[in-house]
């Protein structure tokens, strides 16, 4: 062996590059997110110039709090997308988690925290069903989760049906669980703390664990992943369970914020969540993406929506602008590659 190798070209061919000499945090914010972060900063500077109210502590926390539901859900959605899947049912899971928690608390009288755990469990179970439909029943993710989107919404209506027989908002007035949505730690709203914490945990998980890397592998090349001994089915199911759990959690948080679980909670939100991930650089064809990027994506959308009100934008701009942001972000991302 040695003879052949030595006959070949000289010394070791690998050269160092600067990227991997960084620490764990440095790796998290790799080049990929720098572009979208730059766009966010530019947008914020522009808005600060346009409105004196934008860059106030209060407004910044307002925006962060406003994006927390989408932000928390975008973590799960990003993980599903990285593995090459898609979850359209997140909005319905959000409502099921919220309404079930509120119902158990208010109508059934279960201990508030137990009720929240049950709501979370319902989200995880929903994710499991999605995962099984996609892997065992081999229904493509778009169709499988389109189905559970409707089933979930129906379930939310059923759970919210009050004594008068009409679907209603279910009140939830527990200070403890409500703190998750409405509480503050110092000046920082609790949902913001939750969102940022979960995002960092997810980013560390994806970057540093075996399972995290297997998620990327499955999305990048599922056939190769299988031949590498990865249980593709189990990885996919895991991602849907995570997305379901985070959606339910987001539901409980937003219920806490308003003290009420509405049946229309999160209706149509799946598209915003997907948009956040896509703006953040996650590929719909799998294998690429980061939860930090998705958070920036959600932030961009939240800042734009904030600007609707701050700048008093006319309605046609309000409806058009989010779409333009998506096209711009994805277009720039394609150019960059």
């Amino acid at each position, binding site marked *: 062996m040695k003879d052949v190798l030595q006959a070949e070209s000289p010394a070791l061919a690998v050269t160092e590059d600067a990227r991997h000499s960084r620490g764990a945090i440095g790796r998290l914010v790799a080049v990929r997110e720098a572009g979208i972060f730059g766009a966010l900063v530019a947008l914020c500077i522009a808005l600060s110039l346009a409105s004196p109210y934008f860059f106030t502590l209060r407004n910044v926390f307002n925006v962060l709090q406003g994006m927390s539901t989408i932000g928390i859900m975008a973590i799960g959605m990003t993980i599903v997308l990285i593995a090459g899947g898609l979850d359209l049912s997140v909005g319905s899971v959000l409502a099921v988690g919220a309404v079930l928690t509120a119902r158990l608390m208010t109508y059934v009288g279960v201990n508030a925290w137990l009720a929240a755990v049950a709501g979370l469990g319902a989200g995880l179970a929903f994710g499991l069903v999605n995962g099984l439909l996609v892997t065992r029943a081999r229904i493509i993710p778009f169709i499988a989760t389109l189905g559970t989107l409707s089933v979930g919404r129906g379930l939310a209506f059923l759970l919210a049906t009050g004594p008068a027989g009409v*679907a209603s908002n279910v009140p939830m007035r527990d200070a403890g669980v409500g703190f998750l949505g409405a509480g503050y730690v110092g000046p920082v709203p609790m949902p913001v703390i939750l969102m940022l914490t979960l995002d960092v945990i997810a980013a560390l998980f994806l970057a540093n664990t075996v399972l995290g890397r297997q998620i990327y592998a499955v999305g990048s090349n599922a056939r190769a992943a299988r031949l590498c001994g990865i249980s593709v089915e189990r990885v996919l199911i895991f991602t849907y369970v995570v997305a379901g759990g985070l959606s339910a959690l987001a539901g409980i948080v937003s219920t806490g914020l308003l003290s009420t679980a509405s049946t229309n909670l999160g209706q149509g939100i799946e598209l915003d969540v997907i948009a956040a991930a896509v703006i953040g650089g996650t590929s719909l064809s799998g294998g690429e993406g980061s939860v930090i990027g998705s958070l920036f994506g959600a932030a961009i959308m939240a800042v734009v929506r904030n600007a609707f009100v701050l700048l008093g934008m006319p309605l046609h701009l309000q409806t058009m602008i989010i779409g333009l942001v998506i096209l711009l972000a994805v277009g720039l991302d394609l150019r960059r590659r």
Partner: protein
Amino acid sequence: MLRTRHQLVVTVTATLAVSAACRDAPASHAGRPPNAPAFASAGTVPDEGKVLPVAQRPGKPLRIAVLGLESSPFWIPVKAGVQRAARELAGRGVTVDWIVPGELHTTEVFGRAIDAAVAKQYDAIATIAGDAGVAAYIDRAVRAGIPVATYNSETDTPNERLFFVGAESYTQGKAAGALMCRLVGPAGKVGIITGFFAVEAHQARVKGFEDALHADCPRSVVVGRVENQDKAEIAYQEAKDFMTAHADLGGMIAIAGSPFGAAHAVEEVGKAGKVHLVTFDAVDETMDYVEKGVIDATIGQDPDAQGHDPAVRLYNYLVAGQLPPYGRLLTRADVITKVNAAQFRAPRS
């Protein structure tokens, strides 16, 4: 193969022709009666919500279908009104069925439901008719001899319905606008949270609101118009944004569903009584904030009467040919405040 297909087509065509003829020929009530009130004539009647069934009894048992929704708490008092009518008519051998054909008020859902009610041979139908497309289905039912009343919301497209029971969005908006002017003063700043930019009724309320506001307070300013898609969490965020952007904001109006999100924001920021909030309808969540004084006023539309009156008036027409004085029976635009809140609380069961 080809032949069988031709035969099939012929058979189907024939069947359709026969059934159409059957439906057209013998119906005694076919078409809108000549003495029916003009489609667009409008007014408020004194017996709103209290109209009684006439003394006559029908020659045979009658069945009346009321088509509505259950997807939001607004419908709780409507349904209660229908059930009240059902109880009043039960003694006269009349069945009133409350039917929920779907989750949305679209033509697709309600058109199909009207067709189904005709097929089930109901003697009269009351339906919501917010979309223009529903008009064609109403006309088809009426031509088949089944009188139709509309309630809650109806399209401007003229059709053969007998009468409508409900609020007029523009008028409601005007009431809110006049009220807002009094709350915020002559040069107040006001933010508008509508339901959907694309929904006609919501935009009519906005227009009525702005017309009245500017007429009464010419120096007032509308600082922005946004939609909350009937969602509490969006209303919450938008209300916060309005208050951030305009420290001197005088008031906000929440036009459509889930206005309590905005109320929650006002309460949280501690501006109750400083930022005046006007909303519509009297669902429980809204009423909580009215009682707390966070929502200054909410504009009611007598949902109980909207559920109750159509069934009873249809009965009166069927057995006695009795017709109401207007095409549009406009329900009261009650101004509900902390003071009178108790009498507008939806009945708790």
